[in-house]
């Protein structure tokens, strides 16, 4: 995998390998927090931010602690703990020293601890054997891709807000159908670049 440029991975993870549309990861907050564009953009920013830093952190932990000790199989538990601790620490720091950031990102941080996209990016980084720069490109791209997806969903939801829907399709039902349609559109990109 060394030959792919981090930039290619960056753009691929936004469009062709979008976490939501090609892997269906990070769905819970994608479904529940996609009612308004500003809120979903806030959550998207927080996801991108946390993704970038936890992936970098997990890269070092994996390659400099787990691999030398031959403990690769512990990566699930270690990655999860790292993400949880990092998010909590980040929340404290942001709340104390960056009040403005706290009012846009802060309240979303606890939501992100359990967002599977975060763990997935760290794990894909290992499975696909990315270098550090490739991992960073992948993380930032995945974050932006996720933001793009949730913002698009929020836009679609706002458009259909006042439309009458069959009772059973209200809420999560129609969201999943729209997600499916969007995913079909995004699959159109998939021939352009392949990173997996």
């Amino acid at each position: 995998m060394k030959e792919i440029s981090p930039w290619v991975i960056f753009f691929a993870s936004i469009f062709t390998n979008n976490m939501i549309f090609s892997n269906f990861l990070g769905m819970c907050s994608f479904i529940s927090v996609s009612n308004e564009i500003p809120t979903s953009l806030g959550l998207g920013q927080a996801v991108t931010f946390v993704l970038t830093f936890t992936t970098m952190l997990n890269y070092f932990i994996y390659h400099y602690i787990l691999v030398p000790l031959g403990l690769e199989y512990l990566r699930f538990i270690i990655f999860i703990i790292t993400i949880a601790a990092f998010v909590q620490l980040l929340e404290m720091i942001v709340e104390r020293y960056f009040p403005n950031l706290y009012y846009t990102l802060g309240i979303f941080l606890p939501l992100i601890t359990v967002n599977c996209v975060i763990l997935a990016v760290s794990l894909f980084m290992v499975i696909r054997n990315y270098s550090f720069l490739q991992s960073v490109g992948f993380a930032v791209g995945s974050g932006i891709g996720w933001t793009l997806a949730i913002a698009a969903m929020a836009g679609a939801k706002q458009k259909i807000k006042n439309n009458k829907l069959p009772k059973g399709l209200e809420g999560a039902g129609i969201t999943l159908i729209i997600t499916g349609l969007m995913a079909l559109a995004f699959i159109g990109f998939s021939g352009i670049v392949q990173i997996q």
Partner: protein
Amino acid sequence: MSTILITTAIVTAFTGFLALLLTIAENTIANYGELKIVINDEKEYVVQGGASLLSTLIDQSIFIPSACGGRGSCGYCKVKVLEGGGPVLPTELPWLTEDELKNNVRLSCQCKVKENMKIEIPEEWFNVREYETVVELIEDMTPEIKKLRLRLKDGEEIDFKPGQYIQMKIPTYEGNDEEVYRAYSIATPPSIKNYIDLYIGYTGGTATTYIHKLLKEGDTVYINGPYGEFYYHDNPDKEMIMVAVATGIAPILSILRYMKENNIQRKVTFYFGAKTPIDLFELNLIEELEKELHDFKFLPTLSRVKEEHNWTGERGRVNIALEKYVDNGDNKEAYLCGSPGMIDTVLEVLKKKGFTEETIFYDKF
């Protein structure tokens, strides 16, 4: 064997390191030290910063109504934050109206204490507390109204003004997945401090369904209070006109019993509206009051009497009886308690008779 030990050691060391890091952060970064909260420009509290305003105030024994326990899902815990609350959070926006936003109203469960603050709360909240009570008695008053006696824990007492109400916490039950609070007026006089009586009419709503169908004697019920601007006003020279329908009798009974106990000698006429004779209740209590109060007249008026009821008293709604018997508003005070519809029509009648806003007290529910 050694693999197991190494693995365990590594995970433990790793987790331990992160735990240590978080503990240090908790005590440095998240430690806001002692801060000051000034309430209503007069009372000052020194508090430990970092927690939500709601829990900080509860620690200072100031009870802010809240049903969801700080999750930001009920919207009850509103207070006015004049200084030091930071901007309004997205989690608060759904609960605040435009007017409230303009007046710096915040949800105290979302707003954190991170700097010195100035806030405003209704004066009466200083006296508000939460009480754990036990249902001592449930009694049918009429086919639709039950009397509920809630006894406070041993040694606890509730102080209130005659006419005020409490809020009762309705827990979740099958068919109701959210805790809610409902207000009920206290029917007992303030001299009784270790239990309260409430009258609860069945409407089929969340709270009344719970009370009428599920609540049993011996159950624990949480209440908080007292609240309300509707209470006895001491104007000894004025004649009193009291008007109530159905469970609206509760605060009126509290006031009348208070007057009896304190030997307050004022002329009182109590107009009570009901549909049929079955809907009249607590007649023994009222008879006793008629005997013992200085100058008290009970005037029940029924709106749906039939021949077989043999009713010789007043007929029609309360506003008709008021039209008939109240000559003018000179030197009189009116206390009204009942449904918004009843209050509005009665207000109209009384204003026509010369009562002013200042001489009419009412409690709409």
